[in-house]
């Protein structure tokens, strides 16, 4: 069978760090898939994980549905929020999960759509679930993805970031 679901790079943090970046992403796949598990130093139950495509936050928008365990809301922004980073005030040893799918990331003729699912479940009153449509309004191929902790926060040790390549042939 074809080997089409290929690990490009995996990062497991050995110390606290403010952002994680995949650079020089090979242009040999059809789509990209990113799987993230994080906890961060934010002094709250949840912090925020943000995405910069190709090293900039310009020309980025998102639209999302959120659930917090009691109600559902929707909003939009010019920043791509990937999901909740479980914070320092959350249940010990809990991490959040996020998955991003980026189809046709090498195209130079269309803007880039990003499908995101994020979740933070901590067996506490406050929870967080997001379904997100992200957009980079540029025709440039995607060569880097940077995941940034909001503010001055850091991802903590044992947070993981995996980048996969998906080929359609």
């Amino acid at each position, binding site marked *: 069978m074809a080997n089409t679901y290929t*690990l490009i790079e995996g990062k497991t943090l050995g110390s606290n760090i403010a952002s994680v970046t995949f650079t020089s992403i090979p242009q040999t796949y059809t789509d990209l898939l990113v799987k993230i598990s994080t906890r961060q130093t934010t002094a709250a139950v949840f912090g925020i994980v943000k995405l910069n495509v190709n090293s900039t936050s310009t020309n980025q928008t998102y639209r999302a549905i959120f659930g917090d365990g009691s109600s559902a809301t*929707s909003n*939009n922004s010019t920043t791509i929020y990937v999901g909740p980073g479980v914070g320092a005030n959350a249940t010990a040893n809990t991490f959040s999960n996020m998955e991003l799918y980026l189809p046709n990331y090498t195209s130079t003729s269309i803007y880039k759509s990003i*499908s995101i699912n994020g979740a933070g479940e901590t067996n506490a009153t406050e929870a967080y679930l997001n379904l997100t449509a992200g957009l980079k309004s540029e025709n440039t191929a995607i060569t880097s993805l940077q995941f940034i902790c909001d503010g001055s926060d850091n991802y903590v040790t044992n947070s993981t970031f995996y980048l996969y390549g998906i080929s359609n042939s």
Partner: protein
Amino acid sequence: MAAGSTYTPITTTTLGSAQSSVTFSSFSGYTDLVIVCANLKNAVQQTPFMQFNSDTGTNYSSTWIAGNGSSASSSKLSNSSSGILIGDYNIGMSSTIPSTAIIQIQNYSNTTTYKSTLGRYNLTTTEVYAIAGLWRSTSAITSIALNAGGSSNWSSGATFTLYGILAA
């Protein structure tokens, strides 16, 4: 999911011209299926649907949650003959801003249970959807039609890829 041989591209189609439907009909030997549709754009505003085995009976239902950037909503469509909903009526109305659909079809070949699907649909500048679908048939799925809906067509350049997932 383990990396490697269980995520197999079965077939991919990039439309060279507008057409009303894309059909997958040869995909035996897997446990689950994943369909990735990108750069979707309807020629006119219609609601796209997915049908199995050319069944046009009232055997489909869909339940969804949606967000438009200011409010969230949920609704459902029962006993539909059109198929399982795979997006909104205005899916991808821009030629430069792509819309994306990612659809998972579980245990598609079993002959004892109805077939369920889970889809994520991003109309990036307007709405985001998650849709649970059901086809009330115990027949194995042998063909999948992605219909643009009504008199509409998928536009040239849209891509449709079918992947097979093998449990073991």
